[in-house]
C-alpha cells in the first residue's frame, strides 16, 4: 500500500460499533481519520455483514438488533470519502510511531506514521480447554454464530451449545430459528445467577438481557436447556460424537451430537494495545487482564485511546458510546473544539454500563473449578498440541512460576494464535500448579506480528 495519508494521521483500528462511532465523531470535527480493519466489510463482530451475493434480509441476520445494525452500517457507509478506509488490512505491529499493516488479499505491506491511535479491536470468545476440544465439530460460540451469520451454515446437523456466556442462549436461539437441530443447551452457571443479575443486565439494553427470553423460547420449542452443569469432555474419533457433562446433581450425562459450540464469555483483543505499551491491570470481576483505560477511553500512553470490547467487554451498545467518547477525548487533548455537554452525557451513560458489566460477570460466571481441574493429558495449546501435563512438568523441573517463563520453556502461548486461545487455560494451570492467585502469574505479553504474516520478501529469508 502506498501511504498517501499525511504524517499526522489519526488512525482508528477496528470498524465495529466502537470504531464506527469514533470515526464518525472525528469526521464531524473536521478530521479525516484512517480506518483500518482486517475484515472485508465494516460492522465488527455483532454487526458483521454477509458476503456479496447473499440475500438474507437484515432482520434475519441481526434479529432484534436489526435497527441498530442498520444504523451502524449506515453511519459507516455515510463516511465514505471523508475517511481513508482500509478494509482487508491487518495491523500486525505498532512501533516507534508507525502502524504496520498488511493487506490480507495481496500481502502488500505498509507502514503509516500516526499522531494518535484509537484502538477499537473488539473481543473474542474465552474458552477453557477440555479433553476433545480440538476435535472437528467443536467451535467457539462466536464461531458458531459466524458460520450462520456470515455463511448461512450450521456447524453441524445435531448441535449442542454449552458454557457460560452472553452468547450461549442467543446463538442457540439463532440456530433453532434458522432451522438447525439444537440437541441441548448446557449452561455451566446456575439459572438463579441470571435471574439475580437481570436488573443489572437490562441496563445494557442489548441482546444479553434477552437471555431469559431466549431460554423460554427454546424450551417452548422443545430444546432441552439445563443449568448448573460441569463440562467434562468431548468424545469422538474423526470428529465430536458426544459431549459428556455432569448435571447439577452429580450424575454423568452424555449428549450425542456432531457439533458443539462452547465458550465462557469474551476476552478483549488487546494485543495491539500491548504493542503500544499500554499497561494492563487485572480485573477481578472479569478474571482477566485488561488494558488500563480511563472512563473517557484514554490510556496512560499519550495519543493512544481504546474503546469498545477491546478495552472492556461491555457489549455493543456500550461500544458505540465508548467509541464516540474516546474520539471526543482525543479532540479535547489535541486542543480542538469538542462537544463538552455530549462528553458528559456519554460519561454518565457509560458509568451506568459499568453496572451492566458487573451484571455480566454475575450472570455468566467463569467456571473456576473446571479450569483448575484441567487434566494432565488435556491439550492446552491447540497450536502445538501441548498438554497441561507438559506445561506442569516444565514448571516443576525449572520452577517457572510466571506465564512468560512457562511460555519460554513449554512453548504454550508461543504458537500461531499468540496465546489468544490458550492464554486463559494456561494461566489457570500455572496458578493452580504454583498455588498462586491467578492475577499473580502474569499474562502472556503481546508480540508482533499479532497474527501470522508471510515473511517480508524485502528482508529475505
Amino acid at each position, binding site marked *: 500500500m502506498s501511504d498517501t495519508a499525511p504524517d499526522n494521521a489519526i488512525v482508528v483500528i477496528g470498524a465495529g460499533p466502537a470504531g464506527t462511532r469514533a470515526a464518525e465523531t472525528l469526521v464531524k470535527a473536521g478530521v479525516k481519520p484512517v480506518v483500518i480493519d482486517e475484515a472485508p466489510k465494516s460492522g465488527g463482530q455483532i454487526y458483521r455483514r454477509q458476503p456479496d451475493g447473499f440475500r438474507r434480509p437484515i432482520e434475519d441476520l441481526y434479529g432484534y438488533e436489526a435497527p441498530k445494525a442498520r444504523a451502524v452500517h449506515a453511519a459507516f457507509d455515510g463516511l465514505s470519502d471523508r475517511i481513508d478506509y482500509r478494509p482487508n488490512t491487518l495491523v500486525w505491529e505498532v512501533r516507534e510511531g508507525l502502524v504496520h499493516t498488511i493487506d490480507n488479499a495481496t500481502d502488500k505491506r505498509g507502514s503509516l506514521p500516526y499522531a494518535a491511535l484509537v484502538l477499537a479491536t473488539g473481543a473474542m470468545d474465552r474458552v477453557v480447554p477440555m479433553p476433545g476440544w480440538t476435535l472437528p465439530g467443536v*467451535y*467457539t460460540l462466536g464461531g458458531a454464530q459466524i458460520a450462520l451469520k456470515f455463511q448461512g451454515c450450521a456447524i453441524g446437523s445435531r448441535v449442542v451449545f454449552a458454557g457460560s456466556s452472553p452468547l450461549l442462549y442467543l446463538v442457540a436461539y439463532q440456530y433453532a430459528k434458522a432451522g438447525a437441530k439444537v440437541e441441548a443447551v448446557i449452561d455451566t452457571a446456575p439459572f438463579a445467577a441470571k435471574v439475580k443479575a437481570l436488573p443489572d443486565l437490562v441496563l445494557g439494553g442489548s441482546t444479553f438481557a434477552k437471555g431469559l427470553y431466549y431460554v423460554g423460547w427454546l424450551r417452548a420449542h422443545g430444546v432441552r436447556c439445563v443449568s448448573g452443569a460441569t463440562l467434562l469432555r468431548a468424545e469422538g474419533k474423526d470428529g465430536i460424537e458426544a459431549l459428556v457433562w455432569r448435571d447439577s446433581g452429580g450424575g454423568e450425562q452424555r449428549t450425542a451430537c456432531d457439533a458443539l459450540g462452547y465458550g465462557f464469555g469474551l476476552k478483549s483483543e488487546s494485543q495491539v494495545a500491548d504493542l503500544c505499551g499500554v499497561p494492563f491491570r487485572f480485573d477481578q470481576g472479569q478474571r482477566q487482564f485488561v488494558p488500563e483505560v480511563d472512563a473517557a477511553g484514554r490510556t496512560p500512553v499519550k495519543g493512544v485511546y481504546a474503546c469498545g470490547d477491546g478495552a472492556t467487554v461491555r457489549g455493543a451498545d456500550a461500544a458505540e458510546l465508548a467509541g464516540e467518547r474516546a474520539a471526543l477525548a482525543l479532540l479535547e487533548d489535541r486542543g480542538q473544539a469538542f462537544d463538552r455537554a455530549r462528553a458528559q452525557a456519554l460519561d454518565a451513560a457509560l458509568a451506568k454500563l459499568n453496572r451492566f458489566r458487573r451484571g455480566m460477570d454475575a450472570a455468566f460466571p467463569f467456571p473456576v473449578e473446571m479450569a483448575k481441574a484441567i487434566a494432565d493429558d488435556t491439550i492446552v495449546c491447540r497450536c502445538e498440541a501441548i498438554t497441561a501435563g507438559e506445561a506442569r512438568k516444565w514448571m516443576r523441573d525449572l520452577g517457572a512460576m510466571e506465564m512468560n517463563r512457562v511460555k519460554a520453556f513449554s512453548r504454550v502461548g508461543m504458537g500461531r494464535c499468540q496465546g489468544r486461545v490458550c492464554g486463559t487455560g494456561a494461566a489457570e494451570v500455572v496458578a493452580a500448579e504454583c498455588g498462586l492467585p491467578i492475577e499473580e502469574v502474569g499474562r502472556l505479553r503481546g508480540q508482533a506480528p499479532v497474527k501470522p504474516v508471510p515473511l517480508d520478501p524485502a528482508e529475505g529469508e
Partner: protein
Amino acid sequence: MPSQFTRLAERDRRPVSLTIDGTPAAALEGDTLLTAILTNRRRVRANEFDQGPRAGFCLMGACQDCWVLMTGGERVRACTTFVAEGMAVMTGIKP
C-alpha cells in the same frame, strides 16, 4: 464422506468447483474456503504436532487452527479466504 457444516440458507449462489485431496467437490460463490471444505469433509488439516484432525475453531481469524495446505505448497487461513474456482487443497489425509 461425512461433512461437518450444514447449509441452512443462501443455497442459490453460483456453484464453484474445487478439489479436496484430489477429489472434485462443489461449493458456492461467497463460501469461505473453510465452509467449502467443511460442507464436504469433517476436517481441513492435520495438526503438525500430534497429527490430530482439525477443522478450525473460532471462524474469525483469531485461533489460526484452519490453515490449509494448497496443492501448490502455499498455506492459507481457510476461514478468512474466499473459495475460488479450481482451488485444490489437501486435508492431511493420506489417500
